[in-house]
């Protein structure tokens, strides 16, 4: 054997073995029982365009989270001032970053000022100023805190969405944060994307509010502490929607974050599904107090600013459990239970990108892509064999090694194969023979100059080396940029392309050369089949 052939052959062999090893989980439907331990178990992942599924990009309305915090501060201040007997005219959030307080007397204002300093040290406090004859103070959330709040809101939203998806039951979902306020969700192989989207995108803010029977829903002015909401009624037979306006107290008595559990139950009497909820200790205490104080009055169950139902409180409810009933199907009840368990989103989210691919189209893409690849391989193999004879077959062998290595590498790296990724592989079939074409053409030229096969072969490889390096680097540059900027399918293309180029460098410079070397060292070969 010529010098240096041994390690090259072993390297090729090892890579072939490794490729098959990594490809086994992809190729074998049922792994044998002894397959385990350190042996690879990952399959080549299929992109959503190939296996079907939904890709969502959601934008969290982080400003709403800041406003929500300020609303809480305002409510909290009302309670504190009331408990300290400090009389105030008005407390509310103004604009996007302030809470303003208006009190009747200067003296009270000074007390409030001191209280605010203790209670909200991180807020910027304005000096007392005059507003229509009353004393006013504004509290402003500083920018750093606001940014912090926004960041937390996205983080919380991500966790909540993850919870909901886990409970909904999707296999191998991907949920990632992207940029400042975007969340990317991938749901492979999902059957009912519309339902999943509604489940994920819903804010699910649950509130219990007292109905203000003293104000007519048709009244032109509604006091500051009340608001007009609507109850949607769906006729189960016709499907027609009617909206009933109801005036409720603005302040909620109890909110959904005091829940510990929510489950779907079936009403044995009417065979209707409903959602049973459990409160935590604080929630149970509040619920007990509220119901005790308001027997005979109505209270509204408000979900995302829509009244779900407004039942009459018949008796005091202790023990911390309650039920939400209404026009539920089993699915809608199940979804409501999931969102209540997983908790509300800290801010509304908006879906800004939704790519859904049906499973049949994905399957179609795989089979067509593979078919096209197969035809491409066959045509190129035949062409090379006819054009370069035996040497062409060696190039063909190199190409097949290329494809095998590439698939193995994709499996080993856990990379995702997309339809453009398959296209990249097919394209590589054509491009990968290029290195060999460059080398062969060189060898033919050297042979024409009268060199022996061995000398022509060595000269051919030597002189072609730089050219081959150049041509690979230029392709790698564009592939790297595509990888950096591409998303989804395009990224899959870049991965296949760049891996393919690197692998091709190995097979063309080491792989095929060693086969030639083996041929030529067998005695005196007079003629090279090229």
């Amino acid at each position: 054997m010529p010098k240096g052939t041994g390690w090259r052959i072993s390297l090729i062999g090892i890579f072939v073995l490794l490729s098959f090893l990594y490809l086994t989980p992809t190729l074998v439907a049922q792994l044998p029982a002894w397959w385990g331990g350190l042996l690879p178990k990952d399959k080549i992942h299929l992109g959503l365009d190939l296996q079907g599924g939904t890709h969502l990009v959601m934008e969290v309305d982080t400003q709403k989270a800041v406003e929500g915090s300020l609303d809480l501060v305002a409510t909290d201040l009302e309670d504190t001032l009331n408990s300290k007997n400090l009389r105030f005219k008005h407390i509310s959030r103004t604009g996007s970053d302030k809470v303003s307080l208006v009190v009747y007397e200067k003296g009270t204002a000074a007390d409030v000022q001191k209280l605010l300093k203790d209670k909200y040290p991180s807020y910027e406090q304005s000096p007392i100023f005059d507003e229509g004859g009353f004393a006013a103070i504004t509290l402003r959330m500083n920018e750093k805190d606001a940014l912090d709040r926004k960041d937390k809101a996205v983080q919380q939203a991500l966790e909540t969405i993850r919870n909901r998806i886990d409970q909904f039951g999707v296999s191998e979902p991907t949920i990632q944060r992207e940029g400042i306020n975007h969340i990317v969700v991938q749901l492979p192989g999902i059957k009912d994307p519309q339902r999943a989207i509604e489940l994920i995108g819903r804010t699910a803010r649950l509130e219990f509010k007292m109905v203000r029977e003293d104000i007519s829903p048709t009244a032109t002015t509604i006091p500051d502490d009340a608001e007009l909401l609507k109850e949607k009624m769906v006729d189960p037979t016709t499907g027609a929607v009617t909206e009933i306006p109801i005036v409720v107290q603005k302040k909620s008595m109890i909110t959904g974050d005091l829940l510990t559990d929510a489950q779907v139950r079936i009403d044995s009497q009417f065979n209707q599904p409903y959602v049973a909820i459990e409160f935590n200790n604080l929630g149970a205490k509040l619920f007990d107090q509220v119901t005790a104080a308001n027997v005979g009055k109505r209270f509204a169950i408000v979900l995302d600013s829509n009244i779900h139902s407004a039942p009459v409180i018949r008796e005091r409810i202790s023990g911390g459990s309650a039920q939400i009933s209404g026009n539920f199907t089993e699915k809608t009840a199940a979804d409501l239970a999931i969102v209540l368990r997983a908790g509300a989103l800290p801010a509304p989210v908006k879906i800004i990108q939704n790519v859904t691919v049906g499973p049949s189209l994905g399957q179609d893409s795989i089979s067509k892509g593979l078919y096209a690849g197969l035809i491409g391989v066959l045509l190129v193999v035949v062409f090379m064999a006819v054009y370069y004879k035996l040497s062409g077959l060696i190039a063909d062998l190199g190409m097949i090694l290329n494809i095998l290595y590439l698939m193995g590498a994709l499996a080993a790296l856990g990379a995702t194969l997309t339809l453009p990724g398959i296209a990249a592989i097919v394209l590589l079939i054509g491009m990968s023979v290029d290195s060999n074409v460059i080398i062969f053409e060189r060898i033919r030229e050297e042979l024409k100059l009268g060199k022996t096969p061995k000398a022509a072969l060595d000269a051919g490889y030597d002189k072609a080396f730089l050219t081959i390096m150049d041509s690979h680097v230029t392709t790698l540059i564009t592939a790297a940029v595509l990888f950096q900027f591409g998303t989804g399918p395009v990224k899959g293309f870049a991965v296949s392309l760049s891996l393919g180029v690197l692998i091709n460098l190995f097979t063309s410079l080491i792989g095929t050369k060693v086969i030639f070397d083996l041929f030529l060292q067998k005695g005196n070969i007079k003629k090279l089949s090229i």
Partner: protein
Amino acid sequence: MELLGKTNIDFIGKRNIAFVVSSIIAIIGIIGIIQIGRGAANMGIDFSGGTAMQLKFSKPFSIADARTALHKHGIAKADLQEIKNGNMLLVKMAGAAVGKQSELVQTSFRTEFADNPFTVESSTEIGPSIGDKLRKDTLIAVALSLLGIILYIAWRFDLKFGIGATIATMHDVLAMVAVFFVLNKEINLLFITAVLTIAGYSLTDTVVIFDRIRENLHKNLKGAMHNIFNGSINEVLSRTIVTSLTTFIAAASLFIFGGEVIHDFSLALLIGIGVATYSSVFVASPIVVLLENRALAKQVEKA
């Protein structure tokens, strides 16, 4: 087997014809890019924002009926395209709120085509903010890869070759845009991917020829530029053709058998492979000859 024996074609001599042809293509390409910039070209929804759906009906239908069905439900402007094979309909609507449009399309057909049930094969909805971001990212990607290529060529060759290679690469990019613009094919992310791939491929093609020219320049210092360049191109001509042919075969099988989703993508590749081969011979090298001759003339003047 050999397709070509020893050739001696005067490629450089044909440069005037080539420059005229290339200039026309490049101008159309530039117009295309301006139109893309203005959003007046056939933009994919990944850049413009909007909704695209692929529906598969169980029975044949007419495009006119489909249009009326959508009109009835308030979708006035939609781009409809029928895929004969398998009763499929592509619906494309520019810029609309995510979530509403796709449902509306489904309700329209569910009520108007009650006796012809359908399934949604795929649906893509992209909000305007994503479109903006993708457009920006794409511009950066194209600029970065061109910059990377120029830097590499400038490092490996001298400036004149760098200019030649860059112009040839840009020429190919423009030519692809020109063809897609004239055929009114959709400009989307996959097209950009194809363009960048071809940019890399075209450069490879050019570099192989440049390598040979440089080698011959070192060997033969006396010959006329014109002859050295022509000789080099002829020497590597069979490689140029064989490689283009194998890559073309692979892309063609994608085009013919690869299915609807990557049909336009493989068309772009086919066009690109063709133009890249042409430009490495007829654009890149003649430009370098031009620059070299000018430099020589200056040296003579000084002397």
